[in-house]
């Protein structure tokens, strides 16, 4: 029998990023007891790294903005396979969630008349991202953390949940080990909210940290919840490419939002050469117009560098493939062209000071890690695995999965982003849908009786988790993880093909067999080898989900680009989502499901921003 401690709460939140914290604050404000569990220390979750901003139609900088435009932008960005109800709630409620942060102590950058300043970002029609320089995520997480610690929430840091527990159909708790000593804790609860973030560690080149191993996705899948849209993995166009040790680290889209220009090795600004039809009406005709847009000229249209991420990433891949890349396999991103242009118009302009103020952490990052001064030199950038659009399928209003009492929000939940997320929409999603998850989980906990923990579930999970200590084999967890990352990068990356993905499926079977033999040395105290060994199950599960989703969707849409099906196929795939669940035989099953029809009011909002024409997907 496993030896474990028990902590009981009405609601347990797994994950202390923006989504988990916001959910915990809401649940505890409605009077239930809340426990918050996270793998790292409080305040270190991925949210802390977000740079560019939070999207919300506050209309502080451009008064033409409103929720309908934000909604239409989000749907267009997601290529209309988003859950429209979530996108609607998100656009409607984001402004209130941002203002609330200010009431809790956040100090955003200001407009000249003393309001929250908003900046341009890819795919957003108006300047919409509330921000603090390029460290918006830090402001968001710290504000929630500093507010949350006075709310009576019990925080359990450095504990990793390895299994969810059930009582009949209902969720009843979670089993976790503490990193420090490797001891077991059972968190008993009436409702559980997953807010565990993404899956980036399934790939070699990523902006994501060790935490992003798809835990929430897998925990939910293993107890019978559905996953949706798993084929849609966002590759951010601009990660660092040099030196090798920082490969993948993010270069915020804010650099392009503030006037950054992409060039190939011939010095050509290649983005002007490839503007998709449906974005033509919104894109600048020339350099001059693009720069005027950056400065906030309402007549001007956005520069092509601010097209959606999937498109910019693919253009960069093309330049590199066709031999026009930078020395280390990326392209150049530079701020000097804008600075020169602006310098001519505005006499007192000091480029170095300007960029240091606008992009302080990027300046710092390149200076200290890349050894270059971005105010004077070009950066080298290339795509990096960044964000997971796919995740736990939940109800749009309550965020509950099909397992009673199991909720999910933030990056590990899915629906709102469709085939591609717009920058800035994640932080706002964390707040809006995180709050909803907290509210509805508390409601659920109040309306339902206590659950029972079934110790045989605890025992079997604990036994599974400790098995690697007793094995003798030469399967090293770090090596298996690295091999998986290499394979996913090569075979299920930005540009996908049927035969390569079939090979990936075979590769996954082999990796699963190796993972079943993985061995760890040392003891249970703070042992990264052991932790990595346990993460493998999650990484393998989400990798399989991504691969079968990408195989099933025989078209190119948003973040999914199929070399063998380079076009959108609206007739077959324009109105459907892929849904994954565990079959009765324990194998992963996938099917397509029709998206419910959009109400007329929302269709009108989309049409208003699409030149009066209803996109084929919505017909």
């Amino acid at each position, binding site marked *: 029998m496993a030896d474990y401690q028990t902590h009981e709460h009405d609601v347990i939140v797994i994950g202390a990023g923006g989504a988990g914290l916001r959910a915990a604050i809401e649940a505890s404000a409605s009077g239930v007891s809340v426990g918050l569990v996270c793998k*790292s*220390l*409080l*305040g*270190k*979750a*991925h949210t*802390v*790294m977000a740079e560019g901003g939070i999207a919300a139609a506050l209309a502080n900088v451009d008064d033409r903005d409103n929720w309908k435009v934000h909604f239409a932008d989000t749907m267009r960005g997601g290529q209309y396979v988003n859950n429209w109800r979530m996108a609607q709630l998100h656009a409607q409620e984001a402004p209130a969630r941002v*203002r609330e942060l200010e*009431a*809790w*102590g956040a*100090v*955003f*950058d*200001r407009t*000249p*008349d*003393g*309001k*929250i300043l908003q900046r341009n970002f890819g795919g957003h029609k108006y300047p919409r991202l509330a921000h*603090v*320089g390029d*460290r918006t995520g*830090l*402001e968001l997480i*710290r504000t929630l953390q*500093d*507010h949350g*610690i*006075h709310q009576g929430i019990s*925080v359990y*840091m450095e504990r990793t949940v390895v299994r969810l527990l059930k009582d009949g159909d209902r969720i009843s708790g979670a089993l976790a080990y503490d990193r*420090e000593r490797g001891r077991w804790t059972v968190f008993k609860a009436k409702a559980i909210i997953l807010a565990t973030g993404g899956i980036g560690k399934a790939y070699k080149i990523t902006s994501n*940290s*060790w935490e992003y191993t798809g835990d929430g996705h897998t925990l939910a899948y293993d107890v019978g919840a559905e996953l949706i849209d798993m084929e849609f993995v966002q590759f951010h166009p601009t990660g660092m490419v040099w*030196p*090798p*040790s*920082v490969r993948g*680290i993010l270069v915020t889209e804010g650099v392009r939002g503030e006037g950054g220009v992409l060039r190939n090795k011939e010095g050509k600004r290649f983005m002007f050469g490839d503007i998709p039809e449906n974005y033509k009406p919104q894109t600048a005709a020339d350099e001059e117009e693009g720069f005027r847009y950056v400065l906030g000229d309402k007549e001007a249209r956005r520069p092509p560098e601010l097209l959606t991420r999937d498109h910019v990433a693919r253009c960069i891949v093309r330049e590199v493939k066709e031999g026009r890349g930078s020395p280390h396999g990326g392209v150049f991103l530079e701020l000097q062209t804008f600075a020169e242009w602006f310098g001519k118009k505005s006499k007192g302009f000091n480029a170095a000071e300007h960029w240091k103020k606008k992009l302080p952490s990027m300046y*710092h*990052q390149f200076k*200290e*890690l890349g*050894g270059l001064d971005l105010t004077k030199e070009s950066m080298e950038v290339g795509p990096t695995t960044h964000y997971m659009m796919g995740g736990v399928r939940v109800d749009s209003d309550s965020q509950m999965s099909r397992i009673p009492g199991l909720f999910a929000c933030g990056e590990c939940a899915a629906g709102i982003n469709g085939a591609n997320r717009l920058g800035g929409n994640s932080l706002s999603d964390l707040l809006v849908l995180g709050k909803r998850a907290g509210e509805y989980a508390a409601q659920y906990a109040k309306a339902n009786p206590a659950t029972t923990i079934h110790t045989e579930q605890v025992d079997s999970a604990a036994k599974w988790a400790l098995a690697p200590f007793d094995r003798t084999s030469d399967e*090293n967890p770090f*090596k298996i993880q*690295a091999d998986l990352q290499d394979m996913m990068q090569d075979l299920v990356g930005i540009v996908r093909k049927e035969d390569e993905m079939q090979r990936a499926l075979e590769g996954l079977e082999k990796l699963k067999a190796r993972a079943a033999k993985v061995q760890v*040395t*040392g*003891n249970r*105290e*703070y*042992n*990264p*080898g*052991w932790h*990595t060994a346990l993460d493998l199950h999650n990484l393998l599960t989400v990798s399989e989900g991504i691969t079968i989703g990408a195989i099933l969707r025989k078209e190119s849409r948003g973040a999914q680009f199929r070399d063998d099906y380079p076009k959108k196929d609206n007739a077959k795939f324009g109105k459907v989502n892929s849904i994954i669940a565990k079959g009765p035989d324990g194998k992963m099953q996938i099917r397509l499901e029709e998206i419910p029809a959009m109400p007329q009011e929302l269709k009108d909002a989309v049409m208003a921003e699409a030149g009066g024409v209803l996109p084929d997907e919505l017909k």
Partner: protein
Amino acid sequence: MATVTFRVSRGDATKTEFKDYTAETGEGMVVLDALHQIQATQAPDLACRWNCKAGKCGSCSAEINGVPKLMCMTRLDDLPTDAPIIVEPMQAFPKVKDLVTDVSWNYEVKKKIKKFKPRKPDNADGTWKMMQEDADRPQEFRKCIECFLCQDVCHVLRDHHKHDEFIGPRFFVYTAALEMNPLDTEDRISDLKNRDGIGYCNITKCCTKVCPEHITITDNAIIPLKERVVDEFYDPVLKLIQLVFRPRKKESEA
């Protein structure tokens, strides 16, 4: 490529020893990369914290050749490589294992500091008017990534172990961010004097030197707070004038 020796502190609270490992270095490599290499090839149970690998989360604090630093922002080409590079955990906190220390004290301290209490909103939609020049000061302090390197280096904690009477530079920065937020109406000055031990700080500025976010902890946070404490407690005349003629806060930092 060169081979560099790392002398890493291994062990837990009961027993600690240095162990030597070698790592192959490459261009642009940082200390954290080398530790990951050692983990993957030689010591899979070597414990260290990290998240962002870009100086944004404040997880990877350690002492490198005796200097408190973020491991992810310390490049090998800035260190002498003819001798072993010594990597140790922070010294001001109890050791858990290898490079991991128990920093929970910091979280307890923060809870005791009175939270943000804004004045009534200026506008009907619940928003406030705040100019950028008023936002600048708290924004400097809000850059803090809670790496606790300043806590580690401060002699009041590191050498004199005044953890019960002194909140440390990190939390003076935190208090300053609240006190200098133009919307805040709370009063934390008597706590600073009586509970938080601001008097123990003798302005050595060691904390400012190690701050990876380049926050001017001493000059911009601690000294103005000390001035407020002096204003409030030792100068009743000044205090009376302040009470009668102007709101207590804000002007003093002008």
